């Protein structure tokens, strides 16, 4: 089937099988290998992208469902070499180690603050309940998200 969608600001039109998952379309046809697959049951959140501005797990969306919509991935966040504030905060707070969960974690963190710009620590933790990290114990991820929230209020 033909699909057409805007990914990180650029329109792509391709043929896909109906069974193609959005994450596979992004990785294999659009070349957005920054978005990764970590599980097969939509638990880990590593594949999180934004679909029309809201976070979704791209392993649990068919590419055909995204036809006509807008998708934003980790690769579209930095502009002109300047990191998005959330990327910068992850860096400054050592919120990543192996980096595999990082694309999904950052995309979900951005969505979290969009919905709740001034969360408590507990709200940040709950807002990230769909993203698994095995390296950081989450402490510095939570710290990074809170630091972005604080910066936007001052």
């Amino acid at each position, binding site marked *: 089937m033909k699909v057409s969608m805007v990914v990180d600001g650029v329109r792509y039109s391709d043929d896909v099988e109906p069974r193609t998952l959005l994450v596979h379309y992004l990785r294999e046809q659009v070349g957005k290998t920054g978005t990764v*697959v970590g599980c*097969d049951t939509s*638990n*880990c959140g590593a594949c999180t992208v934004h679909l029309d501005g809201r976070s979704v797990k791209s392993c649990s969306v068919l590419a055909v469902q995204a036809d006509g919509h807008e998708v934003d991935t*980790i690769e579209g966040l*930095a502009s002109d070499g300047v990191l998005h504030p959330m990327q910068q905060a992850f860096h400054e707070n050592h919120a*990543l*180690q192996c980096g595999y969960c990082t694309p999904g974690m950052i995309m979900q963190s951005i969505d979290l603050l969009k919905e709740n710009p001034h969360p408590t620590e507990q709200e940040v933790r709950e807002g990230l309940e769909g993203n698994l990290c095995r390296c950081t114990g989450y402490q510095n991820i939570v710290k990074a998200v809170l630091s972005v929230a604080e910066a936007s209020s001052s």
Partner: protein
Amino acid sequence: MTTTADRRSAEIGAPRTRKEDRHLLTGRTRWTANITLPGMLHLAMVRSTVAHARITGIDTSAAKRAPGVAGVFTGTEIADAQGASLPCVWPVTPDQVAPPHPAMAVETVNFLGEIVACVAARSATEARDAAELVDVEYGELPVVTDLAVAAADQEVIHPDLGTNRSAHWVFDSAAAGTGGDVDSAISAARESGVVVERTYRQQRVIPAFMEPRSVAVDPTGEQTTVWSSTQIPHILKLILAMTTGLPESKLRVVAPDVGGGFGGKLEVTPEEMITLVVAGRLGKPCAYAETRSESLMGAHHGRDQIQKLTLAATRDGTVTAFKVELTANMGAYLGLTTPGIPILGAFMYNAIYKFPAYRFTCDNVFTNTVWTDAYRGAGRPEATFAIERMMDELAAELDLEPLALREKNWIRHEEFPFTTVAGMEYDSGNYEAATAKARDLFGYDDLRAEQAKRRADGDPVQLGIGISTYTEMCGLAPSRVLGALSFGSGGWEHASIRMLPTGKVEVVAGVSPHGQGHETSWSQIVADRLGVPFEDVEILHGDTGVSARGLDTYGSRTLVVGGIAVVKAIDKVIEKARPIAAHLLEADPDDLEFANGTFTVKGTGKGKHISELALAVFLAHDLPDGVEASLDAEATFDPANFSFPHGTHLCAVEVDTETGRTTIRRYVAVDDCGVVVNPMLVDGQVHGGLAQGISQALFEEALYDENGTLVTGSFVDYLLPSAADLPSYLTDRTETPATSNPLGVKGVGEAGTIAATPCVVNAIVDAVRHLGVDDVPMPCTPQRVWAAIDQARERSAARPSGGAQ
């Protein structure tokens, strides 16, 4: 303005942000599964759907006809190419027995998920579709998944062995001359002291690195390149060569970005071997990426031991003997280091204490489950769990304050160096300092007071305090020790330094980090010792074509062993540069001082920076006679001893006695990992380690049913905690430098995992001990905690009343 001298003194110990972050933050990553090559074929594995069977037939005809398929292979078809067995490099006893472990099953399958066939196709989708068409017939055999049942040998899994017992390993302090006789000490304690006997279960857990394993092989050209999501590119290269007969020199192994390992990628996997063999057969690049379900069922698991423990003491709480009888689940086969994992703990059960007698025995047993092997801590978390749980049990038995009991038995700081009852020489430590700091940060006395009040009030939510005063052996490993343990490798590490003409420095590392941050911490070391800017240092690793020698990353060895190799190589660079500097400065080499990267003629302002000398050797226009035109140097470092980080962790939990739910209220970790190169990275390692240790205590368990099906076969059932399920941790440090290496560093990658598990379980038991509970098996699920309370209540109700209370 920052002077060079300021910068230098600030480098070691500076919380530098990581130089390796940017590509990970922006998605410009090089995971193995991202690699695509012209003509690349994709593999799908056919895995056994039964746990124990003879393969009576495989029909691949439909799969071979499926669209896009380039080849379908069974174990019989690739038996010669894959070699007789994947290797186990650690035969722990001379009479150890083990079955061959073919990468692809040939005659029998011995766990559910074992690979029985493989499809190569033009796309991963076509490969998967065709794999579904492979029809395998099995002649089913009895399945044994339970460790205790397997140990009884009623059903023998590998008939050729005649037993399920692979090996029996013993350490006895009396025999070794490192201590007294355990049994006589226990007998004496039964007469006049106290003996505490417990059996604990180290449940089976799964490393669950976030990046599923993948491998890509390019057989085109003269040298075959293997990319793999592995912790051990060098070992993988060597073993692929030795197993297949391919010349070692014809293989190049690359570990690109690797998404976590935790011991789970310390393996030479069937998938790597099969992809190599199939790529060779088809003459085309081949790639395989496992799904999470495949990873959970087919990648090695960790722990899975039964610990029978006997601790003897005098009535004043002085421990007189510790006896450990271990039964360890190997799974169906022996992986790379499977039999040695429980043995790694053998030297740590006595922990920080001055026990006079110690005996450790271990029975390694086969079952119809995926094999076990390294998982973060590997043997040492199990040991620490056993002794730290037992010290709390002893304290309860004698009604002593558990911290005071520990202090009574631990090695005092003025007693270092100290040779333990297990024969280890601990070089340094200060358990008093770490404990005092932890106690203070935790608010120990206030929490004890709150605990007493809740108990008195009969609060449905009870408070418990857990203690874990741990040590571990890091820096694997002195080669001589490994030799004495029959390990099939040395424990050295290698590094080389390339001084580039533009003043940049390339460090080629034999270790292969995958998230730990060594690019940053090593750059700090190089900047400090060589006097070059942090930004000018590049760390190259993970590619055997670039890094010729190395033994890779595991066992908290990267900084302690590999980092010292870097230091030694830097020292050689400096010494190579000295005569050149002297020549250019027209001075005697002995009159030169090297500081902050510059050779200075003593008493003058004249000097040459190391980067100027790098350019001078590149030009080679004016070098002293007989001096080679290179500052580059390499070094191999073999540690003389392990390092022994330690620390005190304290955990307060709230246990909801109505539901059994545990909530961590406060967690304080004070670790002593010696000199700290980068405190931010150390904290990160501790945080992640704590999460895994806490998770073993509360959440994780790999469960098989009686048919050998992994019940926890996806992340729906194999529970990993999210941010919402874990507390924030308060971490701090004491710093007692290691005396065994020039940096004074000890290693920190496994500390959190080792310390946290007993700390949490001790806290849970402490919360409900007054209700009659003295153990909750791991993971301490709400149901198990509730059941423990419920059963204790029933016991006390059934007990005849001993008088008015």
